C-alpha cells in the first residue's frame, strides 16, 4: 500500500466523520435508548422513523459497536450501548449548555428585561413604570412592548418576552404570577344623557344601549368575563363594538352610539364617568413572568415585577384582591364532579 492510499483513506474517514454529525446522532441514540421504541423516539425527535434508524445504524458503523439488539420484536440496549448511554447524555448536556450560553450572549438577555404592557394602561402609568424601574435598576435596559394579554402569554411561552402585565383570567400554565390587583369599572356616558344625572348607575339601566370594549382578541378571558357579568346583572347589550384605541371608544360614547365600561377617569368635555351600583365589574390584573434559568436574569425580572406591581397600586388605583370574598359557585349535574 502506497503512502498516497493511506492519505486518501484518511480523508474519506474524516469526511464520513463529518457526515456523521456526532451530536445529532447521539441525540437519536439517547432518544431510542430512553424510549426503547423507534417509532416513539422518532415522534419525540419530530422526525420520521426511517431516517432515525439510518442515523442509529450510521452511528453504530462509526463507533464499530452494535448499540441496540433488534433481533427480537423489542428494542433492547446492548452492553456497549448501556456503556455509551451515560457518556452520550453527558456530551448532550454540555452541548446544550454551550447553546444556551451562546444564546444569552447573543441576545444580551441578562442585561435586558423584555416586558409586555396592555395598550390601555395609560401614558402616565407607562411613564411612572419606566421611571421607577430606572431608579431601581439603572444597570438594566427595559424593552417595553404594547401587547395584549393573549399575545403576552404566547410570547412568554415562546421566550420572546420575559414579563408582562395581563388581565385575568388567562392561560397561566407554566408561568409565575404577582399579586392579583383589582380595579373596579364604571360606565362612561355622554355628559348630557340622563344616566349622567345620577351619582351611580345600575348596570341594568344601560339596557338598550350598545357597548364599546377593547377587542376580544387582546384578552379573550377578561372580555368573556366582562360580558358574562353584564348579562348576569341585567345588561345584555344589543351590539358590542370593539375599539382598539381608547380615543375611538371615546368617540362612540360622545356620539351617543355606545357606552364604555372603564376604570375611573376624570370627566372631560362631553362625557361623564359614573360608578356602578354594587361594583359588579372589575378588571383583575397581575404581573406575569417566566422562570428564567439564569439567576441574574431572574433577579432582573422579579425586580421589574416588584416595580410594576408597586406602580399599578400607586398610580393606577389598583388594590390587592387577597381578601376578596370567594365567588359563589353551584355546579349543576352536567358540570358536577366527573360528569
Amino acid at each position: 500500500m502506497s503512502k498516497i492510499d493511506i492519505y486518501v483513506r484518511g480523508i474519506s474517514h474524516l469526511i464520513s466523520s463529518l457526515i456523521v454529525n456526532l451530536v445529532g446522532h447521539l441525540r437519536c441514540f439517547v432518544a431510542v435508548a430512553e424510549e426503547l421504541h423507534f417509532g416513539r423516539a422518532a415522534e419525540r425527535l419530530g422526525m420520521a422513523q426511517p431516517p432515525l434508524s439510518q442515523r442509529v445504524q450510521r452511528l453504530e458503523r462509526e463507533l464499530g459497536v452494535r448499540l441496540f439488539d433488534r433481533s427480537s420484536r423489542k428494542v433492547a440496549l446492548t452492553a456497549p450501548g448501556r456503556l455509551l448511554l451515560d457518556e452520550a447524555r453527558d456530551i448532550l448536556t454540555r452541548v446544550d449548555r454551550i447553546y444556551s450560553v451562546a444564546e444569552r450572549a447573543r441576545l444580551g438577555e441578562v442585561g435586558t428585561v423584555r416586558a409586555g404592557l396592555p395598550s390601555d394602561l395609560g401614558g402616565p402609568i407607562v411613564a411612572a413604570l419606566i421611571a421607577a424601574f430606572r431608579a431601581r435598576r439603572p444597570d438594566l435596559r427595559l424593552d417595553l412592548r404594547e401587547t395584549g394579554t393573549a399575545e403576552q402569554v404566547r410570547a412568554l411561552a415562546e421566550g420572546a418576552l420575559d414579563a408582562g402585565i395581563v388581565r385575568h383570567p388567562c392561560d397561566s400554565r407554566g408561568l409565575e404570577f404577582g399579586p392579583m390587583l383589582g380595579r373596579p369599572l364604571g360606565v362612561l356616558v355622554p355628559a348630557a344623557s340622563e344616566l349622567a344625572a345620577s351619582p351611580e348607575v345600575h348596570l341594568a339601566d344601560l339596557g338598550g344601549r350598545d357597548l364599546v370594549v377593547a377587542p376580544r382578541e387582546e384578552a379573550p378571558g377578561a372580555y368573556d368575563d366582562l360580558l358574562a357579568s353584564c348579562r348576569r346583572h341585567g345588561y345584555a347589550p344589543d351590539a358590542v363594538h370593539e375599539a382598539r384605541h381608547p380615543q375611538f371608544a371615546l368617540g362612540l360614547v360622545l356620539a351617543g352610539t355606545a357606552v364604555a365600561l372603564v376604570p375611573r377617569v376624570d370627566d372631560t368635555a362631553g362625557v361623564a364617568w359614573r360608578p356602578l351600583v354594587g361594583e359588579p365589574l372589575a378588571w383583575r390584573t397581575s404581573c406575569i413572568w417566566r422562570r428564567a434559568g439564569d439567576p441574574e436574569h431572574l433577579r432582573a425580572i422579579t425586580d421589574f415585577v416588584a416595580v410594576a406591581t408597586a406602580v399599578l397600586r400607586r398610580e393606577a388605583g389598583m388594590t390587592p384582591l387577597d381578601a376578596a370574598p370567594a365567588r359563589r359557585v353551584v355546579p349543576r349535574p352536567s358540570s358536577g364532579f366527573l360528569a
Partner: protein
Amino acid sequence: MSEAKRGAWGVDPPQAKRMSEAKRVSEAKRVSGARRDARGEVTERIEAEFRAAGVTGCLHVVDMDSGREVAVRAGDPVVLASVFKVPLLVAFHRQAAEGVLDPAEPVTLGPADRTAGPTGISGMLDEVRMSLRDLTFLMITVSDNAAADAVLDRVGRDAVNAAAAALGLRDTVVEVSGRELHESLLADAGVTGFADVWSRLDDPGVAARLRALDPLRTSRSTPRDMTRLLSMIWRDEAAPPDGCAAMRRLLGLQVWPHRLSSGFPFDDVVVSGKTGTLPTLRNEVGAVEYPDGGRYAVAVFTRSLLPVAVLPRADAVIGTAARLAVEALRRP
C-alpha cells in the same frame, strides 16, 4: 371461546388486520392536493370556533371505514376525566368474554364510602344492589362515579391499562379512581367541597397545582388514542361482537344533550358518546353515524379560559367542532 375468535379482538391482532390498518392509513395519506387544502381550511375553522368559545381544544375525527381524518393537536396528551370510563368499559367486556367476571354478578353498594358525584348511585341515600353490567349502564349513561369505582374495583386498574395497551393505545393510562381524583382535587385546592374548587381557580396559580387537571399527573390519553378505541368498539375489534354491541348500546343511551350531540341536531343521525368533566375541562368522545352508512369516531378535549362552571358555549363548541370535521370528511 375459540382461539380463532380470540384473534379478532385479542392481545395480538392477526396480521391481516394490521395490514388493513396500514392500508387505511396510506389511503388517508393519499389525499389529493385540493382535498388537503379543504382539510387545512377546516382545521382553521375549528380553531376559530374554539377561540370564539373561549377554550383551547384538541380534536381528532376519523372516518371509521376509510381512515380519513381531521386532526387538531390530536396527539397531545389530554386529561381523560370521566372519559376513563370508556377504556374501563372495554376492559370489563374483555374480562367478561374471557370468563374472568360474570356481568350478571350482583353487587351491593352501601351508602357509606360512596364515591362523590352528581348522578346515579353517587347521589343516592340507601343501599343499592344491582348487577355489574347494570353498574356499567349507570357509569356510561349518566357518568355515575360510585358505579364506575365499583366496576373499577372489580376489573382492576392494571387490567384496564393492559387492555388499553393490547389495543394499541400507546398514550392511554388510567392512573386514579374517581375517589382518588376527588380526594386529590380537594387536597390540591385546599378546600373541603367540590363546589369551592371553582372559586379557588380565580387565583391563577391554583390551576397549575391541581394534579387532576395536568395530563402528566392524572389519567390521560390523546384524541387519536380515543378515536382508535371508539373505532375498534364500532368495528367489533375491542372485544367480541356481542360485547362491542353492548358497549355501543350504552354509549348510545348517554343522556347529555349539550356537547357532541348538540352539534348534530338531525333526527336521522345517531350520536353516541361519553363526556368527561372537571373544572375548566370539557371533553366528549363518541361516534356519529349517518343513514348512508358513514360513521365517524370523534374525540374532543377542551380547556376553558374562564373558571366558570356553567359555560354553554364551551359545551356546544364540542359539537360544533365535531360537525365541521365530519362534514369535511363527508365532502366527496
